[in-house]
């Protein structure tokens, strides 16, 4: 089977692969994307779609903020099915210690020109009347937003396809120096391969250290206006970074229909996709602590997903050490939706050897990868 030669072959059409495809195609490169299931699948289809700035490290902040600004730029072009909602995030403080964290965050973001507002209890309950009493305040980050990620991925792919971009529904079995081998037969030749295969990435690139981190989500029936912002407890950060087997954190998101997405949970070392009842129970119990009326609400569906997690919680965006033609764009843990656009941009910058808008060294794959055998 003979195919045209490409400048770039991208493995995976989740939101990261799709973002890379869009950047590369718009820059005039001849792009092929190989997707084993469907555009917008993998972790893209199972996550919350929260686009959020994070402050747990300088590189994490830089990446999330840069990407969030790219989302703001692209917003007018997004079709209705992407459900772009500029609802903002409320980081909720349950005690004085967490309130200090709120103040620290405000300073941190303020110094970096991210608008925020501290809400005292009165303002918090005016903003979110259904939160339980006794909370001490919150940090509002109004520029955070929410999207429906699978449709966003599809939009990005379609944009790519208006330039020179071919989509192959197939599975890559091997990455070679001159391209990729396809399961259905044949190969695609390309000057550069980008591995954006998420949790499947290490299968194709041995030496890439990533572990899947399972999460559960629940969606409720429609309760319009019950929650207006994405609500997250400050303990979320502890949960996201703790390396023990299981953790929960209160994280609730309103959808345009008024349905509530309830998360979040993290598990390491669990491979099965099945629902873990005790995890769901723990997660929901935590959510009910903050929003007591959730208890009586109708939960329609439950599902799981796997986040691709690296050891230092930063993604790998750049050339694979020891391989001249292979780039990696994966390992985004719970921030893949947020940082997808910046990932695509930074990858393209590296391909074209342009100066990127933010330093890329922190996301370099060689920071903790052994040089892979050629």
């Amino acid at each position, binding site marked *: 089977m003979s195919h045209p030669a490409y400048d770039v072959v991208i493995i995976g059409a989740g939101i990261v692969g799709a973002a890379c495809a869009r950047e590369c195609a718009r820059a005039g490169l001849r792009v092929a994307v190989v997707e084993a299931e469907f555009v917008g699948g993998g972790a893209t289809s199972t996550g919350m779609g929260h686009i959020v700035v994070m402050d747990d490290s300088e590189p994490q902040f830089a990446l999330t903020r840069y990407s969030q600004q790219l989302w703001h730029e692209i917003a007018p072009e997004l079709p209705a099915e992407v459900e772009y909602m500029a609802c903002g995030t409320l980081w909720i403080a349950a005690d004085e210690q967490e309130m200090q964290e709120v103040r620290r965050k405000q300073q941190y973001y303020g110094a970096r020109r991210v608008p925020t507002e501290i809400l005292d209890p009165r303002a918090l309950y005016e903003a979110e009347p259904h939160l339980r009493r006794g909370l001490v305040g919150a940090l509002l980050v109004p520029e955070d937003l929410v999207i429906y990620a699978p449709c966003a991925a599809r939009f990005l792919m379609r944009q790519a396809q208006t330039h020179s971009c071919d989509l192959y529904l197939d599975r890559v079995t091997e990455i070679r120096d001159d391209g990729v081998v396809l399961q259905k037969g044949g190969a695609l030749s390309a000057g550069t391969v980008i591995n954006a295969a998420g949790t499947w990435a290490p299968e194709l690139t041995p030496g890439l250290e990533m572990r899947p981190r399972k999460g559960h989500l*629940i969606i409720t029936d429609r309760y319009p206006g019950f929650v207006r912002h994405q609500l997250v407890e400050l303990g979320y950060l502890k949960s996201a970074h703790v390396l023990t087997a299981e953790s929960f954190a209160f994280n609730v998101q309103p959808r345009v229909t008024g349905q509530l997405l309830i998360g979040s949970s993290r598990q390491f070392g669990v491979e099965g996709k099945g629902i873990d*009842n*005790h995890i769901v*129970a*723990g997660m*929901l119990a*935590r959510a009910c602590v903050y929003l007591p009326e959730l*208890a009586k609400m*109708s939960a329609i569906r439950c599902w799981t997903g796997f986040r691709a997690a690296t050891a230092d919680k930063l993604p790998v965006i750049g050339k694979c050490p020891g391989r001249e033609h292979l780039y990696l764009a994966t390992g985004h843990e719970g921030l893949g939706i947020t940082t997808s656009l910046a990932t695509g941009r930074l990858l393209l910058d590296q391909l074209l050897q342009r100066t990127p808008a933010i330093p890329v060294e922190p996301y370099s794959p060689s920071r903790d990868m052994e040089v892979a055998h050629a």
Partner: protein
Amino acid sequence: MSDRRQFDVLVVGGGPAGIAAACCAAEAALRVAIADDNPALGGQIWRGEHSSPSSKEAAFWYQRVKDLRVEHLAGTRVFAQVDSRTLAAETDTSVSELSFRSLILATGARERFLPFPGWTLPNVMGAGGLQALAKSGWNVRGRKVVVAGTGPLLLAVAAHLREYGADVRLIAEQASRRQLLAFSLSLWRQPSKLNDALSLRRQLLGVPYLPSCWPIAAAGKHKLESVSVRRGAKTWSVPCDYLACGFHLVPNTELAALLGCVVENGKVRVDELQQTTMPDVYCAGEPTGIGGLELSLVEGQIAGHAAAGRLDPARRLFAKRDKMRRFAAALERAFVLRPELQELPRPETLVCRCEDVSLSRLREHSSWRAAKLLTRCGMGPCQGRICGPALEFLLDWKPESVRPPVFPVRVESLIATAVRTDSETMHNSALRS
């Protein structure tokens, strides 16, 4: 906190199969309960008949289930599995864990809805749907009704609605006259069925019953006002207040699938004793294959006897079951859905009613899974029960695997029934923060 109940035999589903199963199990002096979502026993066909059975058969079984002291867990919907011998269930006010030594799934069937322009208008309902509503107090007296779709169910529904005072204007059967004739001839071997058929015809004198006829559109401003039907080259409009339309029944196999039972071609696989592929889990009635009332009663009895370890009474019913199964097979052959029905929906016709997804948007995708994630079809409260069978017919898409909860439930019910001793600590620490 959830109630914890223990039974020897738990029956899920309170229709004829479930009632028969529970009675036969209870005869062996076992602790038996029926968990059923409806307010009263009877399933669909005997809905509302607990106080006034419409047949000697129904009266017999209602009396028996009472005499044998089978516990009836009304308004109870099973939604998840707690462990290999315990199910989680919820009512409007409580949540419980139901443990069993043997489990009999008698979850019945639902109607297949085929989309066509206007099918989402208020007062377009299922055939069994309108009958169920009428039996629950929905007033159809003097209202004009068109019954459409396929199968003997249409006649039963039409006759019933007439009894409630409805003015049945037309029964539109999509099968051809030849198919109907072949089916009628096969009834000679089942005299009781023939009797039923003749009696139905008598009850429906004066009502046009047209084969090769099907609805092509429903019209009305805020609710149904008329239905357009087609027959051959002719199409015409029938003014009506209700359209009761059903295109076959589809087994409710979700709970069986959740428990790990093998489900093939949409039916739960069972052996001659009605046992599924999971130990101590039986299945009886429509989920093993649509076959009607008599077959459901026989399968229920076999399952009940078998679950109680009484194999001889079970085996004595095998011949009757075989006979009923032959009728079921004839039914399936006779009323095959014609391909023209695949052309009924227009591109803008909604297929998923929970998320308002049109056929054209669904056609953009090559699989059920992709369509689901990119359009949200099947992600609503019906969990794909309404759109799934339609899409299987229209696009040959097979349903995905089942996850808990198999039914929407309150958040508190999910919390209460998943808390176990080892994770109770985690639950408490989560609460403490």
